[in-house]
């Protein structure tokens, strides 16, 4: 089974984010990045499917040079090779544009299965995988929590709201968007890290992918990014932990009357 895993690099969860000077995105210099969380689960799922059914796992990442780090992590964990989509015209694409570029790269690979995360932690479109399925003409299922692969089809467990699930079947080739918690992602071993050094990373720009400016034309654009205006009337407490504890209990007892 040939599996493509779309993996995005996003700012690290505990990184302190600042707005850029134009207030249209964040300041990316001096920032630490990591693999988007659901994508780590998707990668793990791809590796397990390969271990069970044989085949190949190909990482596909669109991002600037720094994204190499995310790609290397995936290769160290066991992916076989990677496609790195990097071009100045790829900067600040919307979900549609990203999906167009990914589709152009993936089409050439003709995979049996494409996995994406269900949502990115930075843009949070929750769209790229589904658009990609449409562009590739593949059936898809979203928010997946279990995959059972058969010869020519998949049986998947789809998460619904409020603790419900649903089984679904779909023919291969297909695309799935993976939800966090589907498995326990592995750590890279030292051997894996060493082995990753010789795994191929193919760089692809708009030219190689025959992508015109028109195909990447945004459908939506961000005009401003800003700190949320706080509407809440939260009362904040300061002092030593002991003082805070006492003030809080007093408020809970005498003001909120919940104790």
């Amino acid at each position, binding site marked *: 089974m040939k599996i493509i895993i779309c993996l995005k690099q996003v700012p690290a*969860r505990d990184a302190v984010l600042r707005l850029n000077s134009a207030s249209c995105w964040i300041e990316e210099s001096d920032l630490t990045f990591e693999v988007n969380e659901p994508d780590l689960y998707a990668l793990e799922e791809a590796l397990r499917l390969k271990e069970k059914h044989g085949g190949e796992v190909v990482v596909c990442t669109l991002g600037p040079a720094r994204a190499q780090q995310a790609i290397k992590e995936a290769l160290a964990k066991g992916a076989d090779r990677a496609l790195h989509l990097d071009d100045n015209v790829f900067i600040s694409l919307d979900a549609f544009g990203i999906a167009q570029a990914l589709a152009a790269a993936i089409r050439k690979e003709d995979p049996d299965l494409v996995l994406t995360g269900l949502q990115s932690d930075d843009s949070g479109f929750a769209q790229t995988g589904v658009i990609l399925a*449409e562009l590739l003409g593949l059936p898809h299922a979203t928010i997946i929590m279990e995959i059972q692969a058969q010869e020519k089809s998949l049986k998947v467990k789809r998460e619904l709201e409020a603790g419900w699930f*649903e089984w679904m079947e779909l023919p291969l080739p297909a695309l799935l968007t993976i939800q966090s918690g589907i498995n326990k992602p592995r750590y890279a071993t030292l051997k894996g890290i060493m082995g990753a050094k010789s795994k191929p990373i193919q760089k692809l720009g708009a030219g190689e992918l025959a992508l015109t400016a028109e195909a990447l034309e945004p459908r*939506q654009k961000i005009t401003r990014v800003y700190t949320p205006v706080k509407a809440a009337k*939260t009362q904040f407490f300061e002092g030593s*932990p002991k003082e*805070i*504890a006492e003030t809080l209990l007093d408020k809970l007892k005498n003001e909120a009357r919940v104790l």
Partner: protein
Amino acid sequence: MSETILVFAEHHAGKLARPAWEAIAAAQHLAGDLKAGVVAAVLGENPGAMANELAQADVQQVLAVASPLLREYTSDGYAAAAAQLIRERKPQYVVFSHTYQVRDFAPKLAARLGGGLASDCLGYRCEGRKVIFVRQVFQGKFYADVEFVGAPPYSVSFQASAFREDAVQRGPAPAPVENVAASLDASTIRVKPGERFREAKQAVDLAQAEIIVAVGRGIKAPENLEMAKQLAEALGGELGASRPICDSGWLPMDRQIGSSGQTVAPKLYLALGISGAIQHQVGMKGSKTIVAVNKDKEAPIFEVATYGIVGDLFEIVPPLTDAVRKMKSR
């Protein structure tokens, strides 16, 4: 002719769900600002009864889009039927609630129509004829103003409770219902939905708890859960958690609070090291009193907190547990 806003009314097995009404409220609001008309659409095998129910709302028209192939929801069936409808009616905007179902087919639909989808929006504002949608980025740490570029239809999905069900305006008389037969080809519906189920019986019913101490990734390691457990015990409450804690297997899934877990409304909710992503907030923001302990003063959880403590939970929780014990023993 004035512009049309088409609104998608979601249902589950023939029952209109709250997101349907929230979407209608959103569409009515937008229509008011744009002086446009609202057309509601409901898809199904026999959507007639639901269409009549929707017709109570103050809308121009309700479309009951029927096909035997729409008996069960499938992304393929819904995208195909909705695409037909939109190509025919040419609405300027298509409005959705940002549910799991909408996540599953709306991006496909928008891509097929070549338009954009502004997903999971909190709201919008108008500058003349221009509409600027507001959505969260970086898990709610920042907001972004978003504008559509290119040709309509412009699709937008709104976050749960961005518009309220009770804001739906009723019409003076029922709106006309039009039956639309969707022409779908069975071979284009590739996904086959199966059984719906819940995981094994829940061991705890957090919905009944009066006090919940919930932990998030700020708790760092499973061995630190004991500290939160002790606080919960001292308060006579239950332990809850954000999704990553349950994903990691540190607590069972029946302790998970949020859109994919339980919805709770205790009189006291303590959030320890939880950032307050929307998917967590929807499960707990109905709590009477919310206390948040977080070392990041910008964490979105503080937007719903009654009382906030900016600090390290490992320093705050032990003296708090002591103080509760002391208070209880008095």
